[in-house]
């Protein structure tokens, strides 16, 4: 089992690095979609047996993260007529370097947090930390508001990856609740982007500082 999980973890690491090195927003969105689909299968792999609950959860996650979010984001892009460049503050090569560094840092940090039980040897914890760092880095280093949403989704994916592997008996209600929260957040941010674009004729977050009091 855990080899499958580790395989998924490797895919997650690769998608994150690819995200950091990609200049096109549409490609970024597709990478996130792929990440979501892979992530959705995690509870299925981590669980001892396939129950109806797990199957439902997997379906819901894959649908939301793999289909609905990308669709919402692409739609927001189309409506707001956004340029396709990511426009980073930190260059792509340097971003990937930072990504690799934070991967090392996460592995190093994870040593201080030994996990109990059967998951002790897996990559789950370092990858979860890594995804959270990459998400935060994406939020900090990209200019467009849509990149902030992408970063937010990556952070959330990181937490999901951790939860799906470690806590195999999280109540379904909590998981669905989290999914719903993220869905609403992405939806609202998509709408907000459209309005920012309409009001200010751009959606660069760095120009929102004219609003401060």
């Amino acid at each position: 089992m855990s080899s499958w999980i580790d395989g998924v973890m490797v895919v997650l690491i690769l998608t994150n690095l690819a995200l950091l090195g990609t200049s096109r927003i549409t490609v970024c969105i597709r990478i996130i979609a792929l990440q979501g689909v892979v992530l959705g299968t995690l509870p299925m792999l981590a669980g001892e047996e396939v129950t109806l609950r797990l199957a439902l959860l997997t379906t819901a996650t894959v649908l939301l993260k793999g289909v609905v979010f990308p669709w919402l984001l692409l739609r927001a892009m189309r409506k707001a007529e956004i340029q396709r460049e990511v426009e980073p503050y930190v260059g792509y090569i340097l971003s990937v370097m930072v990504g690799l560094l934070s991967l090392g840092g996460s592995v190093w940090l994870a040593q201080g947090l030994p996990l109990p039980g059967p998951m002790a040897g897996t990559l789950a914890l370092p990858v979860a930390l890594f995804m959270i760092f990459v998400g935060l880095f994406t939020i900090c280093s990209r200019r467009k508001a849509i990149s902030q949403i992408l970063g937010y989704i990556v952070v959330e994916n990181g937490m999901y990856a951790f939860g799906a592997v470690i806590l195999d008996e999280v109540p379904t209600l909590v998981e669905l609740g989290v999914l719903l929260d993220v869905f609403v957040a992405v939806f609202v941010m998509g709408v907000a982007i459209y309005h920012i674009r309409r009001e200010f004729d751009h959606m660069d977050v760095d120009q929102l500082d004219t609003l401060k009091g």
Partner: protein
Amino acid sequence: MSPFMLGILILFISALLALALRREHEAASRVGAFGAMLGCAVATIPVLRAMAGAEIPSLILPWSMPCGSLIFRIDLLSALFLLPILLVSALGALYGLAYLRPYADRKPVGSLGRCWFWYNLLVAGMLLVCVSHNALMFLVAWELMSLASFFLVAFDDEKTEVRDSAWTYFIATHLGTAFIIALFLTMGVAAGSFDFADFHKATLGPGVMGVLFLFAVIGFGTKAGFMPFHVWLPEAHPVAPSHVSAVMSGVMIKTGIYGLLRMLMLMGHPPAWWGWTLIGIGLVSGVLGVLFALAQHDLKRLLAYHSVENIGIIAMGSGLGMLGISIGSPLLTTLGFAGALLHVINHALFKSLLFFGAGAVQHGAGTREMDHLGGLLKRLPLTGLFFLIGAVAISGLPPLNGFVSEFLIYLGAFHSGATLHGTAALSGVAVITGLALIGGLAAACFTKVFGTVFLGAPRTEHAAHAHECGILMWLPMLTLAALCAAIGLCAPLAANAMAPVVANMTGLAPEQTALAVTYAQWPLTGVVTAAVALLLALCLLALLRRRLLARRSVGATGTWDCGYARPTARMQYTSSSFAQPITDCFRMFLGTRTSLRAPGEPFPQQPGRLSTETPDIFIARFYRPLFSWITRPLSWTLNVQHGRVQLYVLYVALTLVALLIWALGWPQ
């Protein structure tokens, strides 16, 4: 309890409906106002039953907070504060319906609906504050009340001065709330529960209790308007719509008194200096409040300073009561608290009456600058009559209600002066002197107001073309004026009614408090009888005058006709010239700034100019230096707040990583 909660539910629903209908001015106003009145009417039923002595079962709801239970209860103290809140809020809604109508064309679409939304939330907040018996729920209700009133103060938000005043209020009220939170946390942690009923279990040293007492005085005193925490009142009350000023000044600031009394009763046996502190604050607020009122030109600003004065009177009464508890004198306790509590009701009645009157003047004449008015009694006879009743009541003259409560405090003070020994006797002397000074100055101040605004000749075109308000506006004034007179004429009954409330609040035996108020019965009956006789005599004289003048012609002629070629209405006494002898006496406290440009040569080319201004001494001498002293070292933190979202997230990320490394230790 359930009708009460139903009333609050009606308030919430009508608030939301008014917001939803905000595109239709008229519909939103109607829904908001009638919702407020209906909600208040429904909620009055259990309050009246509680006042009549019935035991209202508490409402205890389950909630998942680890700090006690969600408990709502109406006891006599709550009921006493709830009665004026319900009455004034309902009347304010009726009044506001007509008062806000002219704004419908001037303001952007939706502002009336929003105004009613906040108004109903304010009412609901005040009601919840008075029935919450859990510190957390109390704070939630308190905050609802503060925020709703902030938005109401900022109703005319396109004007800079209105926005500034609203911010002053916002900051003041939240600084006060910070002290209340500190008080609740300390008490709650020490008692192990945040239910008020458990607070008495807190065992803290006298030093800590003393600090907590000061926190309560500052926190609740900021809302109530104790000097020197009153600075928001003269800013916020003038700029708010008049029905909101009436509700805020008449009843909302009383929630501060309610919170203070509620907390003081839970803090164990008070040392004598608590009483002294309250008396001292009361004296300062009362005397300085009325002095600053005398120096004002803006009608509503003047009324706001009078709120400070009356809160001072309430604080003096409460101080006497606390002193009575401290030295174990039931008579002093009862008379002090009975006076203070009755004054809470009385002030709610006459202050909202006066604010309604001021609103009618502003509505009719378009200005609240007293020196631009004059002669309004002829154009606004009803408003003038009701304003006069309010003015007499607030000056504490018999046979109106202001007299009754001040008399009870006087009686307590006389008792302490005559029968107590040592320093306690001094309290009586101080209170008597202070009350007498306040009463005299208040009478002078309202003579000035009534004389300048309603008597004489109109000073400007505005005043000359003023129009009387409609029935929706004078009906609330009539109700309040009638109640002022009713309490004044039934003074002995009103004093008796306070006895069970004081007993319930202080834990004295009901027989003791009932006995104590009987001391007030004979003098009150005598004064009321004499006053009624005097009134009857006045009526007879008026009838006689009418009979005598019946067959003669009565003409009007210029008042200033003694040889002046061209008399104008501006030659009349102005509000500042009327008050000048008194304000000159107290110049050292007031700091009035006068700018005078005298006309020079015998045939002056340039007209002369005189203007006086009395800014609040506490803002100018205390708060402004204090805040600039605080701001200077803190201004570098503005560099951190630069508006770049990315860097904000970076702060969060770096903090998280640092915490993670710190928590895990340095991994090997």
